[in-house]
């Protein structure tokens, strides 16, 4: 355990006292802002979820009514209510999204780490989707995935008349098109994380393994990838947070459709709180969402902060 640094100089005086207080002083604004704009607002939302607010906030409490509504007909397999569809979609989406991003990101990072000519060029290409929001690329994606205009038509024109690719318009498959677009956007970032991790590995370990006659794939599987464990953790957390927040993506690609087959908790909450005049109901779904996030993040933060302390 690291003992927090203290000023050990022996010259007490007014200046010194100010100096000692200074670090606290400079973070006070941030703390105040976080207290109001993060925790205050979470508190507000939680409060609203116990009211019967419709169009605009109202402050008379009605108890757990909204939560009861939310979990009426809650059945995940097969999903029945719209909320359960949203939850199942989030599960499908996050698992696929995280796994695919990590596989693609890791593989490309390992390949890019092989003294590739034009590495910078490739890296820029893999990374650029991060720069663009889905408001920008959504139209192109909708187009690519649309049966009339996109891939289906293109391949049919190439002479494969029977080719069909209609996931976007099939309510059972549309969620996977969202995965495709999301992986496209985020796997470059994961690649950057892994590449940075690979560059941070001590060379001598690998050299030693080579001298012992280990084959390259074996070195990667046994030595390199395990030593990237912290990067995996960061990547999973970042991707998880992206998938829970995924909103623009769904709104732009499918608007939750066909039907509400690609609804996610974030779009669900938005639809009820803002479009349907069921603010309290939307707030209840947001609170559940937030609790779910906390359940994942708090253990991570705990280990993260311990980890960095030990590392020093």
């Amino acid at each position: 355990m690291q003992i927090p640094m203290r000023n050990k100089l022996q010259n007490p005086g007014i200046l010194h006292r100010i100096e000692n207080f200074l670090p606290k002083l400079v973070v006070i604004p941030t703390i105040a802002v976080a207290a109001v704009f993060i925790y205050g607002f979470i508190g507000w939302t939680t409060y609203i979820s116990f009211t019967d607010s419709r169009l605009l906030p109202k402050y008379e409490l009605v108890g757990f009514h909204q939560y009861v509504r939310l979990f009426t007909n809650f059945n995940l397999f097969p999903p029945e209510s719209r909320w359960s569809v949203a939850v199942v979609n989030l599960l499908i989406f996050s698992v696929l999204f995280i796994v695919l991003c990590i596989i693609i990101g890791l593989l490309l990072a390992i390949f890019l780490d092989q003294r590739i000519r034009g590495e910078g060029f490739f890296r820029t290409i893999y990374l650029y989707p991060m720069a663009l929001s889905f408001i920008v690329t959504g139209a192109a994606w909708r187009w690519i995935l649309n049966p009339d205009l996109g891939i289906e038509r293109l391949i049919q024109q190439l002479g494969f008349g029977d080719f069909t690719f209609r996931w976007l318009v099939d309510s059972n498959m549309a969620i996977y098109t969202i995965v495709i677009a999301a992986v496209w956007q985020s796997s470059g970032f994961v690649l950057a994380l892994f590449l940075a991790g690979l560059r941070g590995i001590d060379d001598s370990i690998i050299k030693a393994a080579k001298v012992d006659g280990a084959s390259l794939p074996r070195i990667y599987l046994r030595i390199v990838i395990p030593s990237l464990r912290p990067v995996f953790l960061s990547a999973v957390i970042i991707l998880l947070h992206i998938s829970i927040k995924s909103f623009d993506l769904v709104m732009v690609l499918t608007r939750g459709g066909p039907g509400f087959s690609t609804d996610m908790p974030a779009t669900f909450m938005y639809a009820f709180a803002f479009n349907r005049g069921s603010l309290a109901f939307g707030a209840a779904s947001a609170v559940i969402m937030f609790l779910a996030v906390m359940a994942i993040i708090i253990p991570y933060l705990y280990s993260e902060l311990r980890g960095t302390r030990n590392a020093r």
Partner: protein
Amino acid sequence: MKFLKGALIVLVACMFFFCEGAGGPGEVEVLHWWTSGGEAAAVAVLKEMLEEEGHTWKDFAVAGGGGDQAMTVLKSRAVAGNPPAAAQVKGPQIQLWGDEGVLTNLDDVAQAEKWDELVPKVVADIMKYQGHWVAVPVNVHRINWMWCNPEVFKKAGAKIPTTWAEFEDACKKIQAAGMIPVAWGGQPWQEATVFEIIVAGVGGTDFYKKALVDADPAALNSPTMVEVLKTFKMIKQYTDPGAPGRDWNLATAMVIKGEAGMQFMGDWAKGEFTAAGKVPNTDYVAAVAPGTSKQFIFNIDSFIMFKVQAKNEAAQKAMARLILQPKFQEVFNINKGSIPVRMGMPEGPFDAPARLAMKDFSETSKTGGLIPSMAHEMAVMPAIRGAIMDVVTNFYNSDLSAEDAAAQLADAVKAAK
């Protein structure tokens, strides 16, 4: 520079009109979602008229989701205590905003302009909160239209249907001739539009009112509803695979280009035909949807007016007054494809579909066939509308049976009430 310009406008305006304190020129910020070509041109007329009187129009357009996005913005601004002077809000939602106590009373304008005589009572009731005018109706849209391309029908040897049996027959012929029978936009509100047309066409006026206005669970889960749902789902086989997510105007374009035979859509679709240089009854036919010739499903756009600073009150009231002036009513509605909400307007400048709509509007207001649109937020509160739309769109896009869907409709509405 901007300030100078503003000052100049004030000066000029003061010279032409007498300047009287709060009565001077001001500014109205208008939140709306009329961003498509014809619509933007139509509402620009109002801007010009307002500017002629020396006021300034601040445009605040937010497109997307048939006004969903704009409503989010409006709520955000209302809780910030800084709502725009006027916002496009319609139907029962006007009452919700009235409940919040943020709307301005327009009774003085209404009295001076005799709105109660100009506007049918059905409409006036929607615009009033506790007996006071708080909103200004702009236009009347008829929902139950079917836009047809006669060329497609001719090629397929079909005739424009007036019953649902004839409809299916025509679809088969058009499909056999290698064209798409129905141009479909697979977005929940569009699906709900077709659904409500069928509720009216198959179920009849009384059933429509019970099911979609009173949201009576017994009517929603009834054999009639099952029949309605089956008819609704029947259409799916006559649409193309690109339909899901398609915008309405792109579906209209399919009819214009002759790729598809017909489209169910409100009369704003006419604006797209007009913009493409098409003439009614030659290039396209606007037919009343099968089985609904004695019905008029209406959708009325309106502006609610929020309380504003004193200096902008005159501008706001001027906007309210101008909206119901014959000049704006005529130009706007011709551009947008709707009909004037102001009664007794000369039919002359309007085209054939609009004349038919004007006639049916006044007739159905006497027979009771004048019914508010559920899909277009005129009939029920947003939460109930949302619940109905969820089931409808889920039914259309999944393998759910009509019987189960009818049961779900009743359940969903009960839960949302």
